């Protein structure tokens, strides 16, 4: 199989509100950042793919205007997914594997500030039985968290208590103090967090991701092109994505078989990773993912702070792949696992394995 690597990664500073910039004005500096890193112009890129959703800011066909920031005229080879940018990266990866392109630009952005995100996300639900009830995104995550709290704590890692969840929050936001792009950094100790009131019981505010605006981009390249563009490419050894049955009441919400299957097919279990970037917007979801991915205690999980420190919709999954790749680029990691999710209660999951060449 053709070798493909992430050779550059960039992201915006993630902020609660970026009303002063349009989407293209927010995205463009990030595009320039990754293109400058590899010394390419947009016209020299073989394939461009983006991920975004018009519902977030209420702008029809907003991705076509964001494309102005790439410089898409004369026409370039281009595609878009109404999903997190991690799935745009998947599409670009397959394009490179076919040999039709040598390089790809992948970007994603989300401006949640113009709307009410918890309400907007109800529109992605089953339109017959669920969406008419307008169950907001935090409430659905709370149903999953309660199922986890109710489950027996067993040797495999199922089940958790509220102290465990507060620990995930405190660890993530403390780690984010080293991430200049993070929206939420620093945390009181878990015991202090547990003294706070519930937001949607059993979730407290600390269990939930910040709502904010942001963008991210990566450059992919194949084989020797990757070696030329990057000192230590983050080779994509495997990548797969799977989905759960769409009715929440059919699923065992304490488990994520789609993550397990995607991980198997991506080759996660062939050798232990030394770093994992997990897209777990809610603390309870990290507990579920750790079990499905069989992560040992020694694995560094979300040194970036993860989605609990910055969760720009449609970009936060791509950022997990980007952060994992960046750790490989700078030699902080040899084998990284990256995960992205989409939809309510870990509905869809993408898992990738990235490796650096032996030093």
């Amino acid at each position, binding site marked *: 199989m053709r070798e493909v690597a992430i050779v550059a990664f960039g992201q915006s500073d993630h902020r609660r509100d970026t009303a*002063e*910039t*349009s989407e*293209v004005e927010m995205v463009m500096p990030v595009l320039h950042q990754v293109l400058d890193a590899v010394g390419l112009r947009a016209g020299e890129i073989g394939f461009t793919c983006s991920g975004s959703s018009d519902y977030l800011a209420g702008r029809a066909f907003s991705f076509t205007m964001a494309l102005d920031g790439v*410089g898409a005229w004369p026409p370039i080879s281009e595609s878009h997914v109404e999903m997190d940018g991690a799935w745009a990266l998947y599409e670009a990866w397959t394009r490179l594997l076919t040999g039709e392109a040598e390089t790809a630009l992948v970007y994603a952005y989300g401006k949640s500030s113009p709307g009410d995100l918890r*309400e*907007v996300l109800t529109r992605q639900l089953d339109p017959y039985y669920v969406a008419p009830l307008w169950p907001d995104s935090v409430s659905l995550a709370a*149903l999953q968290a309660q199922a986890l709290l*109710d489950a027996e704590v067993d040797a495999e890692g199922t089940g958790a208590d509220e102290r465990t969840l507060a620990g995930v929050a405190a660890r993530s936001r403390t780690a984010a103090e080293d991430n200049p792009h993070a929206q939420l950094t620093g945390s009181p100790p878990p015991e202090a967090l547990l003294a706070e009131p519930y937001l949607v019981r059993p979730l407290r505010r600390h269990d939930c991701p910040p709502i904010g605006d942001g963008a991210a981009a990566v450059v992919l390249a194949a084989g020797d092109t990757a070696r030329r563009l990057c000192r230590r490419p983050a080779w994509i050894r495997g990548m797969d994505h799977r989905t759960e049955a769409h009715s929440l009441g059919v699923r065992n919400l304490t488990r994520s078989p789609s993550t397990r299957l995607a991980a198997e097919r991506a080759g996660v279990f062939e050798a232990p990773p030394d770093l994992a970037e997990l897209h777990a917007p809610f603390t309870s979801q990290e507990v579920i993912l750790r079990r499905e991915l069989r992560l040992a205690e020694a694995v560094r999980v979300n040194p970036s702070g993860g989605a609990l420190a910055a969760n720009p919709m449609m970009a936060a999954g791509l950022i997990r792949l980007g952060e994992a790749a960046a750790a490989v680029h700078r030699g902080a990691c040899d084998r990284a696992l990256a995960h992205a999710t989409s939809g309510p209660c870990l509905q869809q999951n993408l898992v990738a394995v990235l490796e650096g060449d032996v030093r």
Partner: protein
Amino acid sequence: MTPASPPEALQAPLVVEFPFTRSLGPVQSAFLTGLRTRTVLGVRTTDGRVLVPPVEYDPVTADELTDLVEVAPTGTVTTWAWNPAPRRGQPLSTPFAWVLVRLDGADTALLHALDAPGPDAVRTGARVRIRWAAERVGAITDIACFESYDGAEGGPAVPHRVTFTDPVRGIVAPARLDYTYAPGRAQSRYLRALADRVTYGERCPSCRKVYVPPRGACPTCGVATDEQVEVGPRGTVTTFCIVNIKARNLDIEVPYVYAHIALDGADLALHGRIGGIPYDQVRMGLRVEPVWSEHGRYPDHYRPTGEPDADYDTYKELL
């Protein structure tokens, strides 16, 4: 020529509202018609499980499902979350619990609201029953919510053999989302100037083209436009169409002409309505100028200036 002013972004409320009309498959139709008559139907899968709410295809095998069964209106909470601040459109307007309920006779759970005095009155495993809506139309909201129940447990699912008269064939699901629209730096600069009846384009620092209205980036070069250039007010019709369909909420007689207008100094045509001339006399090359509505922040339409038509060669690159 003016350097771009510091960002002072505009904002305005924006409501996106649409009544989605959705048709139903045979299983969904039976389920929602059943709710209208206070009957809860599920569907049996090939391996014998009963799915409630029922779906058209098996979530595991993808087999088409047709074996409808009736289950009890009573059940057990499988997980819950306390919603202290109900939002627009949700089943109850007072604080309530979101619940997944496995109805007696079913193997899967249904999402809905549970009316309860407080979170301490809710637990996983609690017994509940459906509280029906007073008026039922064949929708998931025919279940008003669930309420606490301490009666006998319902039995296993039984075959459903009744054929409904007048089944529900579709639902209308109104959707409304409220936004605060912010057009960003470049468009805010443009709109502010327009309120003073000045039209600013923005020049690409790389290819030198002037874009009107500016959106912040040059789509050819992929770089920020950063230099404001006053354009117009006069311009040339580069192409046009004759509109014969009257738009809702728009007080304009048809037919009328909608045109691309290249303002003098601009390298991209903008859209505008042409007035002050019979529709069948509008032509490519017609010279026009804006007509500002009395309190308008933008031109209401464009009218002929009376100048000779522009030569084709002067606007052929702007078509």
